């Protein structure tokens, strides 16, 4: 029997081999077999820019041997010209759990935040959120990324829908 995530390609970007090993153990139990690993932002971009397309990325805040941290990588992904990258669901894993850091990660364009230390349940919850209740994206003059305010709206059946906020407010 195929596991739930058997059709997904997941990228883990973390300079800690221990963390990567734990996350891989968890993902395998969720049925994921296509797992790529990167220690640096550069390695991550190389994987993201080739096939097979990455479906979900788990990115740590601090990365090895690089002047770029995880939030820099997220910003870079969100500015990509490719749809499969700019809309990529991203879970940021980090021990930096101060409010200021959470806001920085949110402003970079993460989809979900997973504070370290985390549990199998914590990772599962974030994956369920990404897959079953994906957030719409929002574009403003200064931000592009997932809209982190949850709404009770049904996703469109097909195609892509763009709503002007002003228009939405008028229609209330």
């Amino acid at each position, binding site marked *: 029997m195929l596991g739930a995530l058997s059709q997904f390609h997941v990228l883990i970007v973390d300079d800690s081999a221990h963390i990567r090993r*734990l996350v891989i153990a968890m993902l395998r139990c969720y049925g994921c077999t296509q797992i790529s690993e990167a220690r640096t932002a550069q390695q991550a971009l190389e994987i993201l820019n080739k096939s097979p397309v990455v479906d979900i990325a788990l990115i740590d805040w601090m990365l090895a041997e690089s002047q770029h941290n995880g939030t*820099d990588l997220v910003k870079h992904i969100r500015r990509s010209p490719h749809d499969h990258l700019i809309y990529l669901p991203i879970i940021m894993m980090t*021990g930096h759990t101060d409010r200021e850091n959470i806001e920085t990660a949110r402003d970079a364009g993460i989809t979900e935040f997973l504070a370290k*230390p985390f*549990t199998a349940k914590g990772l599962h919850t974030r994956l369920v959120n990404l897959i079953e209740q994906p957030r719409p*994206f929002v574009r403003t003059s200064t931000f*592009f990324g997932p809209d982190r305010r949850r709404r009770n709206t049904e996703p*469109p059946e097909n*195609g892509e*829908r763009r709503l002007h906020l002003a228009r939405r407010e008028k229609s209330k």
Partner: protein
Amino acid sequence: MSQPMDEQPEKEKTEPIIIERPNTLKPRLAAPLDDSIVKRAEEAVHALSGDFRRWLESLITELCSARAKLGEQPAARPTASSLYALSLEIKSLGEMYGYPLITRFAHSLCRLLLRLPGNRPAPMVLIDAHLDAMRAAIRTDMMDAAGVQLATELEKQVSQLIAQDP
């Protein structure tokens, strides 16, 4: 990388828009992503637990080596130092590996290295007290009331230092 990561995005003159896209992930689930698989994942993590102590011990040894290299001079930029990076990793792994007290010691050390106002250097004696606590905790599987008391005391000292005017 074709574009520098720190380059600012081009300002747009459009009003904010919300982009709702079809859910392309959910139809590809091969089985329900329900709670039953969480237990399997917890068991898989538990199966690795035989290695946890050794892994954590090696990280604490690395942390002590990083500290020894500093001598009596604190790192100029704590966030970039190996001392901070290792403390953060130990903080993350301690609890996941079943050593919650080590996570407390490491979290307290992270605050000490990062949060002192006015870029004041962290007192080496207090850094060393955290390292000693971690070493003792991994060596003796410290989980008892004395360990909790030690963690509380270290956290209190760090908080007092953070609260002082620069």
